[in-house]
């Protein structure tokens, strides 16, 4: 029980850190983005597949997407330390599904 509470607290810490860092990166990123593109006319009415510009904004969005992934990855480790084999397998399956979405999405 004590170990599980500690795991919960680490999970909470990972989530809070990930979101905070992503928010800071996004503020910097949007400022830089608007400095170069702010004067242009927005064209969000028609769909052209968007690409992330390299830099702060890309880092912000990737950081955000990887925050839950990091939480799952940590859980694999935490359940292994608790010697809870079923949950090591369960969290590994979730991690594999996240990886599947990531890699097939980019390959397509």
């Amino acid at each position, binding site marked *: 029980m004590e170990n599980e509470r500690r795991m919960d607290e680490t999970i909470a810490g990972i989530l809070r850190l990930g979101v905070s860092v992503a928010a800071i990166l996004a503020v910097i990123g949007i400022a830089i983005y608007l400095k170069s593109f702010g004067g242009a006319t927005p064209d969000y009415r028609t769909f052209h597949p968007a690409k992330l510009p390299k830099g702060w904004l890309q880092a912000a969005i990737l950081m955000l997407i990887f*925050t839950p992934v990091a*939480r799952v990855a940590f859980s694999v480790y935490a359940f292994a330390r608790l010697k809870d084999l079923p949950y090591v397998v369960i969290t590994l399956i979730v991690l594999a599904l996240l990886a599947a*979405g990531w890699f*097939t999405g980019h390959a397509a």
Partner: protein
Amino acid sequence: MRSLIITLSSATVRNYRTHNERVNIAEFSLLVWLGSIAAGLLGALTGLGGGVVIVPMLTLGFGVDIRYAMGASLISVIATSSGAAAAFVKEGYSNVRVGMFLEIATCLGALAGAYLATRIPTSALAIVFGFVLLYSAYLSLTAKDHIAEDTGPAEPWAARLRLDSQMPVATGWQSYRVHNVGGGFALMGVAGALSGLLGIGSGAIKVLAMDRVMKLPFKVSTTTSNFMIGVTAAASAGVYLGKGFIEPGLAAPVMLGVLAGSLVGAKVLATAKNQTLRYIFSAVIGVLAVQMIYKGIAGRL
């Protein structure tokens, strides 16, 4: 304060629509940011989450293509869910094992939903979105904080997976049991599919699966749902990113606005529980849902 922001943003939306040609990306981002704060507030106060409010706001109010709207919404959903989940997990309400196990179902569903989203026409997305929005508003209005009756037969899977747990109450810790794991798992697959298909968290359906099907205590259901939303959305995010749904100039202000709005909304919710306010907001959401369906059928989204 709250009504001020909402009035302000609806006025700016109107302003934007009439002077569309003269608005540049910087001004547009500012308006979207303000609107997203209002959407985050609305999402937190109705218990629906920001994503489900963002998509109608961007498509109906700002004329944004629904795929960009879904991409921005999905990103904001990851942010708000992770932010809120951190607090709930720490307090001990979220059932991490239940969440982890059911994430297999939501992630599978999310991958299927996200692939479907890249293949079906946008008018179909708008119509499905409208109906899901209506149903979610109905669910959140009828949701009640209650202690589940612990009467059903013992569930072998709950014991095998060690899902039964405890939650903090005024007098210490209270034990609860988990029922109908199979039914909950199946409904979670549906919740995941809708999340991937529409770029939302589908928290209302996740709560439905845990609260009403698996008979978890209400507070455990809502907080565990929140805990799962980020991972579910992350499964679709790779697909959305690969297909170009995530327009950074739109996603960043939306995410920052919804995050701020929902943080304030959660604080307001903790201090004042106003039932009338919930009814008014749910009515607003109902109107948005009907508009989404109408525009989808008319082929204008």
